[in-house]
């Protein structure tokens, strides 16, 4: 009996993200639950008003690392994984990242989604710069 290969969708886009699209991509009939994490730009960080965020990625390494992380999530029980991340400039309220996971049951779905976003922050060669009215700053993830 042929095994179906686990489905992953990895994308870095310099255009608005649609979370519904990522969710639709992980619609496996074998899954009893989907978890979708949507990361958005906050209007304030550490007491400073954020005018915009600038995301930069090292392609193709970023896609390679995200695919590896998605594969690890599948080992943890995710059936299908989609990771869509922005590059370029975003204003407060815009979607910066979507992680969508489908699994048979909710425990694995929640755990896998959390795993992917945590690992993305730690390992993916993606950087974020905050632009304020009086300066700018490259941020660093906190483990």
């Amino acid at each position, binding site marked *: 009996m042929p095994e179906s290969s686990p489905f992953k969708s990895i994308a870095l886009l310099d255009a608005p993200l649609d979370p519904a699209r990522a969710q639709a991509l992980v619609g496996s009939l074998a899954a009893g639950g989907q978890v979708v994490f949507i*990361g958005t730009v906050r209007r304030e960080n550490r007491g400073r008003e954020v005018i915009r965020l600038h*995301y*930069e*990625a*090292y392609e*193709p*390494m*970023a896609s*390679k690392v995200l695919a590896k992380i998605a594969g690890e999530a599948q080992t943890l029980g995710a059936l299908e994984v989609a990771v869509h*991340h922005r590059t370029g400039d975003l204003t407060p309220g815009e979607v*910066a*990242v979507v992680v969508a996971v489908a699994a048979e049951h909710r425990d694995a779905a929640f755990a896998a989604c959390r795993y992917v*976003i945590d690992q*993305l*922050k*730690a*390992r*993916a*060669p*993606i*950087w*974020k*710069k905050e632009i304020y009215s009086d300066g700018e700053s*490259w*941020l*660093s*993830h906190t483990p």
Partner: protein
Amino acid sequence: MTEVRRSGMAGGSPRSSSPEIEVEVLLFASAREAAGVARTSVILPASATAGDLLDALAARFPALAAHRGSLKFAVNSEYAGADHPLRPGDQVALIPPTCGG
């Protein structure tokens, strides 16, 4: 804009022809801003490591030196340590602390 520079070798022109390698360097985020270039090439002794490459870059771009402690390396899109031996044509990326998501 790509520039090619030879890393400093003490003693003027070498008497023996020690083999050299050329590697491509990509700089991102705060490293790019410190150095002022997004990509460059460096010629190094054949036995050079990623750490040796960073020494050469810090000598050429002094503002990069302040970032040394926090930079990671990727060689041909795979994370690598400072002791990773470089080969001709390698693409080495300087990876400042990441912050996706």
